[in-house]
């Protein structure tokens, strides 16, 4: 287990190093000068030069890369060009929306997908199965921003059950905040739940046809018991992978949904930072997201080992 963990950790570090170079280079070649953007059309050349100097845009590539990476290693993610506040602080604030939203959506999708997938698998071939699978087909095919738009029209504008978007802030009350995250979470969760339900079902069907399930049945377990006690945990590995992928997707991938519901989340922050050429924010946040994805994958792999004893003893 330790060896397994260490090997994974090492490749994690290498991946992060490569990712940092790729991100830095990509952001470097972004056309558009942050200083010009900040000072607008009437700015004078000397004013621009002064600002560039202030922003530290004049150093060599190499030294800027090193100071960026060095900063990140010590927890200093730099200072936003436009907001003039530490990136770490900004990220922290945004994370308080993106993270709960991702968790909320993931919880919803899991809560929908597990029962649906298990039900469909246990009733394989029945009308229920066909029905659930049909709905998930639709769920996978529906563009989530379109679905979000429709939901806003129905639930916010017509029925006025929810606000059309925005985020009041956790200090305004937990339930109020959760309520404002509900429509976005549903919009995000719908396709994810559909995918997850399908994976759950097919993975469960795979394990249900394994020999050991037959063995369990021969011991006198009923179909349900065999499913719950033997098939389910074995079926979990591909499902875990998908959940891991989905979580990292939700963390950054809500950009469009965040835009529809004007939530000040991480995704929208990147989107805005790119158009404002707030390079340091782009770099640091993308790096952070990559780190999150890699770390989540790492955790998922470790959790495989928890599910599956074969992995615990080194491969």
């Amino acid at each position, binding site marked *: 287990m330790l060896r397994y963990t260490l090997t994974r950790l090492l490749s994690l570090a290498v*991946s992060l190093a490569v990712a940092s170079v790729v991100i830095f280079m990509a952001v470097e070649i972004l056309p558009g000068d942050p200083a010009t953007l900040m000072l607008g059309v009437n700015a004078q050349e000397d004013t621009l030069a002064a600002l560039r100097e202030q922003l530290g845009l004049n150093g060599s590539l190499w030294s800027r890369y090193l100071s960026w990476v060095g900063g990140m290693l010590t927890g200093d993610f730099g200072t936003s060009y436009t907001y003039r506040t530490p990136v770490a602080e900004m990220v922290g604030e945004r994370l308080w929306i993106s993270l709960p939203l991702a968790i909320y959506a993931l919880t919803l999708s899991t809560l929908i997908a597990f029962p649906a997938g298990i039900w469909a698998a246990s009733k394989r071939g029945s009308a229920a199965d066909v029905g659930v699978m049909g709905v998930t087909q639709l769920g996978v095919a529906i*563009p989530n921003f379109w679905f979000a738009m429709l939901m806003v029209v129905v639930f916010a504008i017509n029925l006025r059950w929810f606000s059309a978007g925005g985020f009041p802030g956790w200090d305004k009350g937990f339930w109020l905040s959760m309520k404002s995250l509900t429509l976005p979470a549903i919009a995000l969760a719908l396709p994810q739940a559909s995918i997850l339900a399908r994976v759950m079902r097919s993975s469960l069907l795979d394990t249900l046809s394994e020999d050991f399930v037959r063995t369990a049945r021969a011991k006198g377990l009923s179909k349900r018991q065999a499913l719950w006690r033997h098939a389910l945990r074995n079926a979990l590995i591909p499902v875990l992978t998908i959940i891991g992928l989905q979580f*990292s997707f939700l963390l950054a991938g809500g950009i469009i949904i965040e835009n529809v519901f004007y939530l000040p989340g991480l995704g929208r922050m990147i989107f805005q930072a790119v158009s404002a050429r707030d390079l340091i924010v782009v770099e640091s946040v993308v790096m952070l997201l990559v780190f999150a994805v890699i770390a989540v994958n790492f955790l998922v792999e470790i959790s495989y080992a928890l599910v599956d004893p074969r992995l615990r003893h080194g491969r």
Partner: protein
Amino acid sequence: MTDLRADHLPPSGAPVRLWGRALKSRSLVLGAALTLIFVLAALVSFLWTPFDVTGIDIANKIKGPSARNPLGTDHFGRDILSMIMVGARVSIAVAFVAVGIGMAFGVPLGLWAAARKGSLLDEVIMRGNDLVFAFPSLVIAILITAIFGPSAVNAIVAIGIFNIPVFARLTRSGALTLWQKDYVLAARVAGKGAARISVEHILPNVTNLLIVQGTIQFSLGILAEAGLSYVGLGAQPPTPSWGRMLAESQTMISFAPHMALFPGLAILLTVLGLNLMGDGLRDLFDPKLRGRS
């Protein structure tokens, strides 16, 4: 002595039976029909559309469905049916080429990694794939279009890049099982090299997998293109695109819902069609998995 007869992969070389079974598969037929409708619409649009999609006719703006415009007109008075037809062209082309890119790079990489399983090369290829997967795709798409400007071509590149690891992994895992097969050993006994074996024996036998995954990536490509166009990073005006039609209709959804409804349905149905087709194809190629997914 084991029983090897049970459930062996059905032979791929039985075209007649394959067609017969294909026609019996409900999801395959439905999916193919839906897909075909949109492919046809795209093809027809090259020759004919009810109206000129670049022709702006402000006097006729935002009209609901009518005999003249079966799906209504948009805020510039353009015919929505015509735009959806031409939009299909863009969606399909972007997704198609993106899948092509994914396959063109992913498949050889996967084959190569599998042929050198366990080597440093394999490790590098697979870790590289993981890395690409680790990048948030939409963010990268935004960066790419911010660097090179928004356009259909850049959308293709952005989507295509993320298809590469998908195909590389699939090919590699498919190829790895095939490398265990005795017929590969037989080919090695016949003195064939890894490259030759990969092309002659491995590749043809992973094509089924690739076709199935290809349809799925195709549908994901259409969704991705719609998403990118929706945030303005896809095909540029005056070329119509489904995602941009949705974006443009968004502020008008409350009084002109037809403007959002039809492009949304177009995306939904095309993606649905492709997914159904993918499922159907998987069942067709691999009856063991029938009804699994």
